[in-house]
């Protein structure tokens, strides 16, 4: 079995046992990227030199007996997470040449652990989309079927892990952007509780919803990465100051007596039969292991899509206003006055979906609509938050689909923005409520495409989520393209 197939835990053991060196390992990954990126298109930027430098340093740390589990592990970073000296494009013409003079806190943390950053990963422009087709660098292709999407917006992050082009990756999740691509590519993805991971250096889409999280080959790896990136950051006022937890602990404790809530609203209509069957089958597996399934209600969840789109687009309309062609980013050469400088730089620099969201947000905040759209959405947000709280009175985790279908064809939905938006029904509410959501592969559809179950927990219950996910993974196994699962 190739070294590239191995998990963080396995790779780390091989590095420590001197079965392979970090530089050699890094070269293996780079070779793999060189070979497959043309096809998968998951990398926007590969930073070979920086990676090899980091690999040498990591090797030294290992030689000196450095204990960090991520030391020497090659990783990819979604291209909306700032990396000092390495361009950070957000897959947008607007930031095509932007080289940040600072790194995101999570990147500092990974580098501090000795991780090796291979490059920056493709995505939907400014994280807006669910298929990673909205990228000036072209769509990410699903490693399971190259005619299909990898999901989005962290499609590059999910595809890179699935295609063994990184040992693990970081993505960001505003309305499902880690969980849906994880499901589409058959990898594990975690959207942490809002406030658990610092947002400093994550190019903001919707500040009250955005969270950075890991995508990995298995649940254990996910826990290892979370250990490295979680925690209070004085640079982020919304990062929570709480005691350190070891997320790898208790993974094997099992699910005996764990109450699993099944929201009836999630299994009603609009859900693909294969997806429904795979998710319910996974729940049965958990029951077989001692878990107890209950039906729960999330009566307001049906409004989560409009509430999510109004809130996220409103925040985005302000967050993306700074791209004006003055201090950084794309600047139109045609502008004759200041007003044209704004309008043309933004008109030419942003893609269609980004413009659509900015306009939607601008509209929702403008006088006359502020109360009936924006403010109303904030009220609905609280209703959804309350719904989850009520549901968690009767269960410990909620099991749900990640998306109504498994991966669809490239180009299939791109002309139908509203249809794409509606797909966020299972994920967006979790962001609105600030809760953690873990996606673990649990089956495949009739086309052979992977399906992931979403486990939703109470705020800061990542440890329990990972424990349930681990039990499930042990029961159903992990999923790799090209392997006969």
């Amino acid at each position, binding site marked *: 079995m190739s070294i590239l197939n191995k998990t963080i835990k396995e790779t780390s053991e091989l590095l420590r046992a001197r079965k392979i060196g970090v530089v050699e390992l890094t070269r293996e990954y780079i070779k793999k990227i060189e070979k497959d990126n043309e096809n998968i298109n998951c990398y926007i930027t590969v930073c070979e030199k920086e990676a090899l430098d980091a690999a040498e340093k990591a090797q030294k740390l290992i030689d000196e007996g450095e204990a960090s589990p991520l030391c020497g592990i090659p990783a990819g970073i979604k291209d909306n997470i700032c990396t000092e000296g390495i361009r950070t494009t957000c897959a947008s013409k607007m930031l095509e040449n932007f*080289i*940040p*003079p600072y790194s995101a806190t999570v990147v500092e943390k990974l580098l501090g652990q000795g991780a090796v950053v291979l490059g920056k990963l493709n995505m939907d422009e400014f994280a807006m989309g669910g298929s990673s087709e909205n990228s000036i660098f072209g769509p990410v292709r699903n490693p399971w079927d190259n005619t299909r999407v990898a999901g989005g917006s962290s499609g590059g992050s999910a595809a890179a892990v699935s295609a063994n082009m990184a040992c693990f990756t970081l993505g960001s999740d505003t309305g499902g952007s880690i969980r849906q691509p994880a499901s589409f590519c058959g990898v594990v993805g975690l959207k942490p509780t*809002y*406030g658990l991971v610092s947002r400093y250096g994550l190019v903001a889409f919707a500040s*009250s919803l955005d969270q950075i999280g890991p995508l990995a080959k298995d649940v254990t790896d996910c826990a290892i990465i979370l250990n490295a990136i979680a925690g209070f950051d*004085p640079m982020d*006022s*919304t990062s*929570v100051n709480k005691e350190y937890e070891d997320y790898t602990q208790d993974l094997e404790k099992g699910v005996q007596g764990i109450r699993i809530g099944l929201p009836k609203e999630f299994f009603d209509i609009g859900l693909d039969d294969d997806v429904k069957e795979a998710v319910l089958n996974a729940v049965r597996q958990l029951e077989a292991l001692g878990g107890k399934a209950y039906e729960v209600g999330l009566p307001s969840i049906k*409004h989560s899509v*409009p*509430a999510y*789109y*109004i809130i996220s687009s409103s925040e985005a309309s302000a967050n993306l*206003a700074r791209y*004006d*062609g*003055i*201090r*950084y*980013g794309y*600047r139109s050469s045609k*502008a*004759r*006055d*200041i007003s*044209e*400088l704004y*309008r043309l730089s*933004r*008109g*030419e620099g*942003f893609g269609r979906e980004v*413009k*659509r969201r*900015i*306009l*939607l947000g*601008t509209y*929702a905040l*403008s006088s006359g609509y502020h109360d*009936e*759209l924006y*403010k*109303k*959405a*904030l*009220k*609905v*947000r*609280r*209703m959804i*938050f309350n719904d989850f709280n009520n549901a968690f009175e009767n269960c410990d985790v909620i099991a749900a689909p990640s998306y109504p279908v498994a991966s669809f064809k490239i180009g299939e939905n791109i002309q139908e*923005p*509203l249809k794409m*938006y509606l797909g966020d029904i299972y994920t967006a509410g979790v962001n*609105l*409520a*600030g809760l953690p959501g873990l996606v673990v592969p649990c089956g495949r559809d009739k086309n052979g495409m992977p399906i992931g179950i979403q486990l939703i927990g109470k705020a800061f219950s990542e440890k329990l989520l990972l424990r349930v996910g681990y039990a499930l993974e042990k029961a159903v196994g992990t999923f790799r393209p090209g392997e006969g699962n």
Partner: protein
Amino acid sequence: MGIDIETIKKIANLAAISFEENELEGFARDFDLIIGYMEQLSKIDTGDIKPMEHVLPVQNVFREDEDTNQNNRDELIKCAPVSENGCYIVPSVVES
């Protein structure tokens, strides 16, 4: 409600985004559909529910009043598409 091209132009102006004339019609059509869907919000009875701005029960996060930053001008201004003598440049902004 009906989103027409004029509405799109008005919002685009507020958001400072230029559009090609031929883009507008398709955009307005999509937008009309999307807004039409989002407007279900206004029909929801939210009773006396208060708007939720933050999900975290966190308050009073401050920094101490310390001046900690170094002058980094030359590095920061490298990000600018145009600059001159340490200044950012825009087309003339005349006070009318």
